[in-house]
C-alpha cells in the first residue's frame, strides 16, 4: 500500500506541476500495461485497506458493530473495486 501511495503522489504532483492536460495524460497511459498494472494493484490494495480501516474506526467511534457493519464494509470494498476498475479502464 505504502509504495503504491508514494507512486500515486509522485505521479499526481508530476502531472499537475507539469501542467499536463487530460489528452496529454491519456496519450501516455493509453494501451500501457505498466500503468494498468500499477494502478490496478493500487485499486485492489485500497479496496482491501479502506473497508478494514473504516470498519475499525466506526466500531471505535460509534455504537455500530456486528454483522451489518461487516456487510457494509464489504459492500464499500466492492464499490471501490467497481469505481476503481472503471477509472483504470478509462485511463488505459
Amino acid at each position, binding site marked *: 500500500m505504502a509504495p503504491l501511495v508514494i507512486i500515486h503522489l509522485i505521479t499526481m504532483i508530476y502531472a499537475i506541476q507539469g501542467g499536463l492536460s487530460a489528452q496529454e495524460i491519456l496519450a501516455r497511459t493509453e494501451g500501457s500495461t505498466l500503468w494498468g498494472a500499477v494502478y490496478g494493484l493500487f485499486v485492489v490494495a485500497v479496496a482491501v485497506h479502506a473497508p478494514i480501516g473504516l470498519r*475499525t474506526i466506526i*466500531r*471505535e*467511534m460509534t455504537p455500530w458493530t456486528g454483522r451489518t457493519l461487516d456487510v457494509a464494509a464489504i459492500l464499500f470494498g466492492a464499490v471501490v473495486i467497481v469505481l476503481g476498475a472503471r477509472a483504470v479502464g478509462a485511463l488505459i
Partner: protein
Amino acid sequence: MTVEDTSTGNFVVEIWRGKDSGEFVSYDVPKRASQTILDVVSHVQRRIDPSLSYRFACRVGMCGSCAMTVNGVPRWTCRTHVDRVAKDGHIRVEPLRNLPVIRDLVVDMAPFFDKWQRATGQFIPSDSENKQAFAQVEPDSRERQEADAGIECIGCAVCYSACDVVAWNPEYLGPAALNRVWTLVNDSRDSGRTEHLAAVAGDAGCHQCHSHQACMTYCPKDLNPTAAIAGLKRATIKSVLRGEL
C-alpha cells in the same frame, strides 16, 4: 514521641471520591521535601479523612499497586514527586482509566486480568512424556532477546489505562496481555505458538493497535508493548499466509 513538623507551607490536592460517578474533593495538605503523591494520599487518609480508599504496598517503586491517574497521566504514585507534576501547584488524583471504579482511587483489576487469560497469556507446556528432554534456551538468540525485553511486566495496568484503543474498544485485549503473549511466542520452551497467535489474531487482538505508543511512553518498567504488538501483527500475518491459522 512527637513528630517533628518539617512542612514548609500547604497546598491543595483534588482527589476523586465516589465510584464511576462522584466528585473531586479538595484537601489542604502540608508541603514536605521529596514528597510523593502517595505521601499526599496517605496523609489525607491518615490525618484528614479516613474513609478515603486507595491501594499501595511496597511504596518503593517495585510492585505497581499504587498506580493512579495524576493530572491526567497514569503513574505509580510512590514514584511521582509532587514538585515534578504540580502544574501551578495544582494536583488532581483520580483512579486509573479504563477500569471500573470500586471506590475512590481503587479500581477493579479483574477485567485487566480476564483479558490476560483470554489472550492466552499463560505458558503452554509441551506434553512430552520424556521428562529428561528440555528445550534449549539460547540467551543470545533474537527470539530470547525479544522475550527478555518484555518479561519484566508486573501487571500494574498503567499501559492499559494509557491506551486509547482500550478506551474506545471494550473488547480490546490491551497492551499488557498482548506484550505477555509476545514473550511466550518467543519462548522456546512454550509449545502453544498456534494457540497464542489464534487468541490474538481476532477483533479483540493485536491488529486493533493503532501504534499510539502511550503504553511505551508510560510504562514504569520501560517496556515497549507497541513493539511487542507489532511483532504479533507480523507473526499472525505470516501464520495466516502459511495456512497455520
